[in-house]
């Protein structure tokens, strides 16, 4: 896994420029973009870890988030546990679920190339979606918490406060992760495996354990995110599905395995999206801008002489 400051620095410069322009034009778009973008980044991060370190393309990524949301929902409905508190049990639950999925399936397609992984996880995602449909039907479910629609007023400027939690959580997870990679033995092992799995094996790192750890951790981060999202979203079997695509987009934009890049890419795309949505009459083009920015960045960063 690369933690490369240099590659992302110009992206950062562009982002900074956009932030200033947008901030002058419509500050709320900027804040919405920051909040949404942080959420995107938070969800994309585990995918980037799995892809960057294990080289696994996980199409069931969004479905793990969905499972996390339902787990948190069940805890709320049956045991009245507040979603924000349920983040911890759901984290543990998803760590275990991730471990099970890893042992039963992922372990067997490590190093097989992206295609079998893609199809395998596509199959897993169908199975998870169908299971949820059978048990909970397609009817959306919500958890109402008054704090989820709270807001703060500064002068005559009113802005939602709950989604700052996304921003906070995103930065917290990113910082903790980086600290972990740098300061702990396991983190160093993860780093080494990400760089060169065979070499890591030779120097005595248990690569298999590292893979298991990474898959469980990334699945756990989705659980954490799910608890925080729950009061703000509707959950239904396909809730998480679109996030797989968004996450892939961010990972590709940031460059494989770049942690800083994910956060920047998420916020950039979030702001781009929010800005277009704020222009009266042109909201329908926000997806185009989202993908346009994505394509432009990928092209600029990865074009090869052909």
């Amino acid at each position, binding site marked *: 896994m690369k933690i490369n400051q240099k590659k992302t620095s110009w992206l950062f410069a562009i982002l900074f420029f956009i932030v200033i322009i947008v901030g002058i034009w419509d500050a*709320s*778009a900027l804040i*919405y973009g920051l909040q*949404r973008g942080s959420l995107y980044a938070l969800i994309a991060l585990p995918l980037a870890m799995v892809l960057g370190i294990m080289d696994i393309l996980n199409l069931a990524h969004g479905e793990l988030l969905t499972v996390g949301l339902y787990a948190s929902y069940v805890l709320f409905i049956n045991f009245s546990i507040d979603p924000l508190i349920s983040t911890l049990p759901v984290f543990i639950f998803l760590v275990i679920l991730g471990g099970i999925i890893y042992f039963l399936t992922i372990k067997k397609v490590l190093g097989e190339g992206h295609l079998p992984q893609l199809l395998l996880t596509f199959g897993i995602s169908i199975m998870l979606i*169908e299971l949820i*449909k059978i048990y909970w*039907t*397609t*009817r*959306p*479910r*919500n958890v*109402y918490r*008054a704090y*989820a*629609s*709270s*807001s703060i007023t500064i002068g005559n400027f*009113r802005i*939602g406060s*709950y989604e700052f939690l996304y921003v906070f959580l995103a930065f917290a997870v990113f910082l903790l992760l980086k600290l972990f990679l740098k300061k702990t033995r396991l983190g160093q092992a993860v780093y080494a495996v990400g760089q060169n799995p065979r070499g890591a094996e030779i120097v005595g790192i248990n690569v298999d354990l590292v893979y298991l750890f990474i898959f469980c951790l990334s699945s756990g981060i989705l659980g954490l995110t799910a608890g925080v999202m729950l*009061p*703000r*979203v*509707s959950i*239904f079997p*396909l*809730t998480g*599905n*679109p*996030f797989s*695509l*968004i996450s892939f987009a961010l990972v590709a934009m940031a460059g494989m395995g770049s942690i800083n890049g994910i956060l920047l890419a998420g916020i950039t795309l979030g702001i781009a999206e*929010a800005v277009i*949505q*704020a222009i*009266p*009459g042109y*909201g*329908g083009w*926000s*997806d185009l801008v989202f993908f346009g920015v994505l394509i432009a960045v990928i092209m600029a960063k990865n074009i090869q002489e052909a």
Partner: protein
Amino acid sequence: MKKLSVVGIIFLLVVITLSLSFQIRADEDPIKIGAVNPLGDITGRQSTNAMELAVKELNEAGGLLGRPVELIVIDSELRPEKGASAIERLATSDEVDFFVGGMASSVHLAQIPTLKRYEKITVWIGAASHAIEEAVGPDEDWYFHLHPWDYQQGASYAYGWKDIEEKHPEVQIDSLFLAYEEGAFGTDSYESYQEYFESAQEGEGPYADLMEDFSGVSFVSAAHGGGDYRAMLRQAMNYDPDLFIWAGYDADAVPMLSQVREIGFSPPIYAGSPPGWPEDFGDSPLAENVVFFGMWAKSLNEVSPVAQHFWDEYIAMHDDEPVTYFAPLGYTNIHFLAKGVENAGTLEKEAVIESLREIEYDSPVGTTLKISPSRIISNQGFSEQKIIQWQDGVQEIIWPFDVATSEIIYPYEW
């Protein structure tokens, strides 16, 4: 003597064959109704349940024309080509007599060419897009569509709002803001409102005197990965409409209401037209005084014995409450068709079509079903929706007044 015995034998043979054939017709040859519904979706699942209930009732009452009724259901998987091949299967392998179903305009559009090939009597309860009507065309007398078309729904709300304005002078609607999801469902709504607005400016159409000003903004539905409505809501707040309507899915309901509070938006009427509501929506304080357009609500049980009957029987059979109006519509679908056959006294196509056109069926959605032409097709069923409001966690019908269960609470406040 010889002659007599020959005649006798022939007579015997005729009697035997006749009775045998009658026997076969009565016991082994049911009237088959083929249904194509999306079984993975709550709407398709519940409407299928309701269809099964209706068939059970028919058979318990002795069947149709003395024959049992059989319902054959195939999952459309919400995929157009699967929906079309389901029709094909029902027509050829199962040799059904009638087609019924089903949800999703895209699936139904793909079924139209196949349906046209078989020209069997078809009664459809979903798929509201006017594109369906265009695809069917004016000459297909075998096609019956029960759900109001998108443009009919919009018109019916106008009549409702006018009636409400008249009855409650404090309600004053001049400007309208439509928040619509970017997909086919929302965009169709927007386009028909746009049309109404244009004719209203010339003093014509249902929205004349009702819509003096109109604006609309799209959003990405949570069902398609969106769910951030704040940019759209801010535009709505700046516009400050008398009536705020959102055209999206049930998944949008709660997040949008939550964001409405976040940004401090409070229109006098907050209305929506989702196909259903989320689980336990009524228990949420967000639901209070939200208005919506729909076909049916549980509270209809108070005013309609048919609705009450349907409700009780459905729960008795499936141990589950109907939550989408596609359940009573599915029930209506079968009974309407059965009544047509019964009145015709035959399965002969022309006769059944004739009698279906004459029927007045008192349906569990609280309205009498009566066929009349729409813009293009000649056999359109319902043309109106109801205006319903969440009050104390219950869906109360506030219009049409003849089935109303409560008065409107105005203005919307939180």
